[in-house]
C-alpha cells in the first residue's frame, strides 16, 4: 500500500494492560502477537497496514547501566550494517534510532523498579517518524499497581479484568470474534476464564441465561441471579463441585461461579467463569461484575 493512500490515524487512544504493564496506544493499533510468560516476553501491535510497535520485557535482578547498554546496542546495530545509528531519548527513555531493512526504527529502554524488569519499546516508522506519538506512547508506559486482594489487572482484547491473586495467564485463544483468556494459580486452586464473544446473532438463538445454564451447569448447589448494572443485564449462576473424592478431602470442594452479559455498546457477549477450591464458601463481593471484569470498550463502566 502506498503510504500516501493510507487512512489518517484516529486521535483516540486505547489502554492496554499486559503483565502488569500499562500502555496507551492509538485506538487502531491492535495486539497481534503476545507472550504469556511474565519473566521474558514480547507483544507486537499493528495498525491496518503493518506492525507499529514491539514491546518486550525481561526480568532482571537490578537496574542496568543504560548508558553502556545503549552504546553496546548501537555498536551491535552498526555491526549488522545498519547505517546511520544515532542515540535518542524521549520521555526519559534512552534509546537509539536508525534505518533497518528500509524502515526507520527507534528503540527505547527503561527499567521498572517494582516489576524488576527492563522494558524495550521498538517503533517501526513505515512512514515519517512521529516524535510526538513516540513521546506520548513512552510516557504512557507504566507499572499497573495490584488491585484488591493483590489481584493483577489485565486489559486486552476488549476485556478489563482482575486475575485471581497469584494466577498467571495460562491459556489464550484469539480468533475473529472470540477472545478467551484463562488464568490459573500454580497450585490449581483458582482458575478464571474470561471470554468475549462476537458474531452473537450467529450462535445465540435464545436467552443468554439459558445458554449460560447449559454451558456451565455441573455439580450441585445451583443458585441463579439476574441483575442490571448500568444497562448491562448480568446472568449469574453458581454451584459446587463435582470433585473427585480424594481432591475434595485434600483441598475442599470447588466453588464455581459464572457471569454472562451482553454489552449494549459493542453487542458482544462477555463471560466470566471462576473456579475456587476452598473448604468454605468464598465470600461474595458486593458487586462481582463491577469489581472483577468489565467490557473495556464500554466507557460507562469502570473497574
Amino acid at each position, binding site marked *: 500500500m502506498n503510504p500516501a493512500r493510507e487512512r489518517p490515524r484516529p486521535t483516540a487512544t486505547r489502554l492496554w494492560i499486559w503483565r502488569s504493564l500499562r500502555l496507551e496506544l492509538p485506538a487502531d493499533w491492535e495486539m497481534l502477537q503476545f507472550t504469556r510468560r511474565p519473566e521474558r516476553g514480547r507483544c507486537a501491535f*499493528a495498525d*491496518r497496514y503493518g506492525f507499529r510497535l514491539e514491546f518486550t520485557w525481561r526480568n532482571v535482578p537490578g537496574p542496568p547501566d543504560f548508558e553502556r547498554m545503549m552504546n553496546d546496542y548501537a555498536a551491535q546495530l552498526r555491526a549488522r550494517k545498519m547505517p546511520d545509528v544515532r542515540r535518542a531519548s524521549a520521555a526519559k527513555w534512552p534509546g537509539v534510532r536508525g534505518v533497518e531493512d528500509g524502515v526507520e526504527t527507534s528503540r527505547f529502554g527503561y527499567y521498572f523498579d517494582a516489576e524488576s524488569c527492563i522494558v524495550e519499546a521498538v517503533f517501526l516508522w513505515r512512514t515519517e517518524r512521529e516524535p510526538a506519538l513516540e513521546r506520548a506512547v513512552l510516557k504512557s508506559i507504566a507499572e499497573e499497581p495490584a488491585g484488591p486482594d493483590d489481584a493483577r489487572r489485565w486489559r486486552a482484547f476488549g476485556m478489563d479484568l482482575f486475575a485471581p491473586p497469584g494466577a498467571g495467564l495460562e491459556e489464550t485463544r484469539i*480468533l475473529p470474534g472470540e477472545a478467551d483468556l484463562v488464568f490459573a494459580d500454580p497450585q490449581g486452586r483458582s482458575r478464571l476464564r474470561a471470554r468475549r464473544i*462476537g458474531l452473537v446473532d450467529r450462535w445465540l438463538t435464545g436467552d443468554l441465561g439459558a445458554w449460560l445454564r447449559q454451558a456451565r451447569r455441573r455439580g450441585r448447589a445451583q443458585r441463579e441471579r439476574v441483575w442490571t448494572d448500568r444497562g448491562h443485564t448480568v446472568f449469574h449462576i453458581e454451584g459446587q463441585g463435582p470433585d473427585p473424592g480424594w481432591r475434595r478431602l485434600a483441598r475442599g470442594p470447588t466453588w464455581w461461579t459464572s457471569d454472562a452479559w451482553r454489552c449494549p455498546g459493542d453487542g458482544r457477549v462477555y463471560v466470566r467463569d471462576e473456579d475456587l477450591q476452598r473448604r468454605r464458601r468464598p465470600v461474595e463481593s458486593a458487586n462481582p461484575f463491577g469489581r472483577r471484569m468489565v467490557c473495556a470498550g464500554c466507557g460507562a463502566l469502570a473497574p
Partner: protein
Amino acid sequence: MLAARPIPNKAARVEEEGGRVVIYVKKAPGRRGRRVWRRIMPTRDERRFTLDPLGADCWRLCDGQRTVEEIVDRFAERHGLSFHESRVAVTGYLKQLIQRAILAIALATEGE
C-alpha cells in the same frame, strides 16, 4: 494485499438456496483420458460450492470494484468486528474462493 481487488469469476453461476449461496464453477476440460471416461460415465461438468452465511456475505462484497481493505472494513462494520478480526476472516474466505476459482485477484499497480 489490502489494495488488491477481488474479481468474481463471470463464468460462475450463483444461486440462493434457503438463505445459503451456492456457486457452480465449470470444471476444466481435463486430459483426453478423462474426457473419454466422462463419455462412458457422465458426471456434472461443474463443481458446486455452498457458502456459509459469513462466506456468502464476503462473496457479495466482492463486486470487482471494492479493494480488499474496503471489503474488510464493510465486513467489520456489518458484524461488529475489529479491523484485524475482520481481516483474518475475510482473507481466509478470499483464499478459499480463489483456490476454488470463484474469484481472481487484481493486484494494485505501482502507486496505488
